[in-house]
């Protein structure tokens, strides 16, 4: 947000009047163009192959994995964060290669920008110390790395603590302990080298062993004591679930329920990266073949991001840049080898004849390879443009579908419902819905919501989940406690929209049952005897009488949805609903949109007379 405000003010100062809304909408594409430039600089700095930078920049310009998060209008942290991350990495590689304080300080400034934009800075502050540690283990630790890392750690940590969200975490939380540990280790290593230079070998051995044992002992006890007394907090849930993917599934259902947090399948990799998945191993091979300090960093970055992208689909975004860099290295190394072959040099006489003879068909192989790689890259372009136009270019609030005769049908139900709420309800009314729609209701209907996408208060969301999963009477108590006036549900059974609340219902049950007051809600009650989730006559009675079921299917039993099917046929679940004619006791239907996608109910006030 600060970035958009700064850009807006700069442009106002230059008398370029662009509305702030347009600045926000186009911020992400602008920063992704800057990312392309930084990728070019970063790949050039790796010095594996001269022209790798251009290829990598061309690839990252269209890679779907990054485009998905940087379309115009997506005003999320990741739009700027990837630019900041690659900028920090570029400065870090420069600092390691040159060893000057200037580049290290620039790295710290870029790191500060990264911390202020995204919580994913934890990845950076663990990757860079891991790189330094790897260099130490491989015997490549030199004065340059020492200067670079010490400057970066000191300046970067002090700067990052200026952000109020981070505060004192760099010295208190386990996620930052690796950086602190490696910083200490750097000092010790440099000190040991200094002593080795000044002392005789025998004296040095003795001093070194004594110091090492004392230090390990004190450090070990210090870490154990601090962790046990709780001064160093353990890894927080959202990062711990990256190391142990089953943790979120078993313990924190609200993290596990987000669809972006699901593990990745092969088709997501291929869909977002296409030809890069083939070039990535080749690029790693080239980096391994010519190991330098900078290459080790890229190898570590690549391997770690592959693992993290496998754990969580959302982190495909972090993988896309390194895939482009490494594939750029591979493509340009191979091309530079083979393009030279196409035009064979005039051969020098006799001495070289013995060796040259073995390289038969040089120019043919070179030409064939250049053609093949050219075709692969052209298909990459076609794939990226198709994916971007089909999957990542649709607005998310207006849906469209094609009828069987090819005509396009527009579903504008969301805006219809939110406008109805804005026009027809008192201004101070409170709307209860699932947290996915919170921001939309707040922004477009301008009404207070009970829970929204910030998902800050898990207990509160759990209470809403309990209300949705309980029977009407029980839910009415919860709704009166939360002071709810209107309830909103999304129902896709009439048109076949599969991201509706009944499909999300099991998550509501799990989250509702995860706190103390929801202990009576057990997931098993909502399945049939054979363990299936069904909404037809075989469905579990708890499910057929809960509030969510009744709100979704109120009066649905009278509607014919598909030819040849009985009334009340749910097109998403593919079943005729079990509980058809029922009346609502505590709610009354306020509004249902044209395609029944959004249904709004008013909570009835307490009856005037007793009994």
């Amino acid at each position, binding site marked *: 947000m600060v970035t958009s405000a700064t850009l807006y003010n700069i442009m106002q100062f230059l008398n370029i009047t662009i509305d702030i809304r347009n600045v926000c909408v186009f911020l992400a594409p602008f920063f992704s163009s800057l990312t392309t430039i930084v990728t070019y600089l970063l790949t050039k700095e790796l010095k594996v192959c001269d022209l790798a930078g251009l290829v990598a920049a061309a690839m990252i310009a269209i890679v779907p994995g990054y485009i998905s998060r940087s379309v115009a209008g997506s005003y999320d942290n990741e739009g700027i964060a990837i630019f900041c991350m690659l900028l920090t990495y570029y400065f870090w590689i420069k600092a390691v290669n040159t060893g000057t304080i200037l580049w290290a300080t620039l790295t710290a400034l870029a790191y500060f920008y990264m911390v202020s934009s995204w919580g994913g800075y934890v990845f950076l502050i663990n990757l860079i110390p891991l790189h330094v540690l790897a260099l130490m*283990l*491989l015997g490549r630790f030199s004065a340059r790395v020492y200067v670079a890392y010490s400057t970066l750690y000191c300046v970067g940590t002090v700067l990052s603590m200026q952000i109020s969200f981070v505060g004192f975490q760099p010295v208190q939380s386990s996620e930052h302990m690796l950086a602190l540990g490696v910083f200490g280790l750097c000092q010790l290593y440099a000190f040991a080298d200094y002593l080795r230079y000044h002392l005789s070998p025998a004296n040095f051995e003795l001093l070194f062993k004594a110091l090492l044992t004392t230090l390990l002992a004190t450090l070990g006890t210090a870490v154990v004591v601090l962790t046990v007394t709780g001064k160093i907090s353990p890894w927080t849930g959202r990062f711990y679930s990256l190391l142990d*993917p*089953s943790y979120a*599934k078993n313990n924190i259902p609200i993290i596990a329920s987000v*669809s972006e947090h*699901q*593990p*990745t*399948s*092969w*088709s*997501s*990799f*291929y*869909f977002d990266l296409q*030809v890069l*998945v*083939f*070039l*990535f*191993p*080749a690029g*790693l*091979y*080239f980096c*391994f*073949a010519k*190991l330098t300090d900078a290459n080790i960093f890229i*190898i570590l970055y690549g*391997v770690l991001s*592959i*693992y993290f*992208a*496998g*754990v969580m*689909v959302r982190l495909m975004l972090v993988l896309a840049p390194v895939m482009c860099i490494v594939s750029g290295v*591979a493509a340009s*190394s*191979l091309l530079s*080898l083979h393009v030279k072959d196409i035009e064979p040099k005039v051969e020098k006489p006799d001495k070289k004849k013995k*060796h*040259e*003879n*073995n*390289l*038969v*068909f040089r120019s043919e*192989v070179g030409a*064939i*390879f250049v053609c*093949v790689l050219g075709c*692969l890259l052209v*298909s990459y372009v*076609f*794939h990226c443009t*198709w994916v971007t136009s*089909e*999957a990542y270019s649709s607005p998310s609030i207006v849906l469209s579908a094609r009828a069987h005769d090819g005509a396009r049908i527009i579903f504008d139900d969301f805006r219809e419902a939110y406008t109805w709420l804005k026009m027809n309800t008192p201004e101070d009314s409170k709307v209860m819905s699932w947290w996915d729609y919170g921001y939309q209701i707040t922004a477009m209907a301008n009404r207070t919501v009970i829970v929204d996408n910030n998902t800050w208060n898990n207990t509160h969301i759990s209470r809403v989940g309990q209300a949705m999963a309980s029977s009407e009477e029980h839910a009415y108590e919860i709704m009166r406690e939360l002071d709810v006036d209107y309830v909103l549900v999304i129902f896709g059974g009439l048109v076949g929209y599969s991201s509706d609340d009944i499909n999300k219902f099991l998550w509501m049950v799990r989250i509702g049952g995860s706190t103390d007051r929801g202990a009576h809600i057990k997931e098993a009650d909502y399945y049939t005897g054979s363990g299936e989730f069904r909404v037809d006559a075989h469905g579990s009675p708890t499910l057929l009488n809960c509030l969510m079921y009744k709100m979704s299917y109120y009066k649905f039993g009278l509607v014919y949805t598909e030819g040849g099917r009985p009334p009340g046929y749910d097109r998403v679940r593919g079943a005729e609903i079990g509980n058809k004619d029922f009346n609502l006791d505590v709610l009354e239907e306020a509004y249902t949109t044209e395609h029944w996608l959004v249904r709004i109910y008013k909570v009835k006030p307490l009856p005037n007379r007793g009994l």
Partner: protein
Amino acid sequence: MEALFAIPFSVLELPNIKIKKPSWLQAPSAMTTFSLVLFSYFLVTGGIIYDVIVEPPSVGSTTDEHGHSRPVAFMPNRVNGQYIMEGLASSFLFSLGGLGFIILDRTHNPTTPKLNRILLISVAFLCILVSFFTTWIFMRMKLPGYLQN
């Protein structure tokens, strides 16, 4: 000062142990590490984490008109779901394509004999082309509208 340090050792006796680093413990070579990395790439891009968390079946099954259940290789219409076998098959193809490019680089030095070089180059091109086209076909089977408007 020496006297101060000598006090504990008037009571304690140093054990005479000789601990040496075992000679077979060495840092792995670059290519060994690379093969380990390639193996882990094969596992992760095959969706092994997805398999462990979501526990999909190894192949899916549908029932056709006569009531027989037929196996389904690819989970249809979803980019974010897979069966175990399709994941492993695809990541095998990814690694094969990568290996094809690597072979192309290894054959480019003058010391390989002629026949070896021709064979290896043809194998490499075969790897690259087969894996590319097969993954393209897999994606078509999974998403029927792939690369069509």
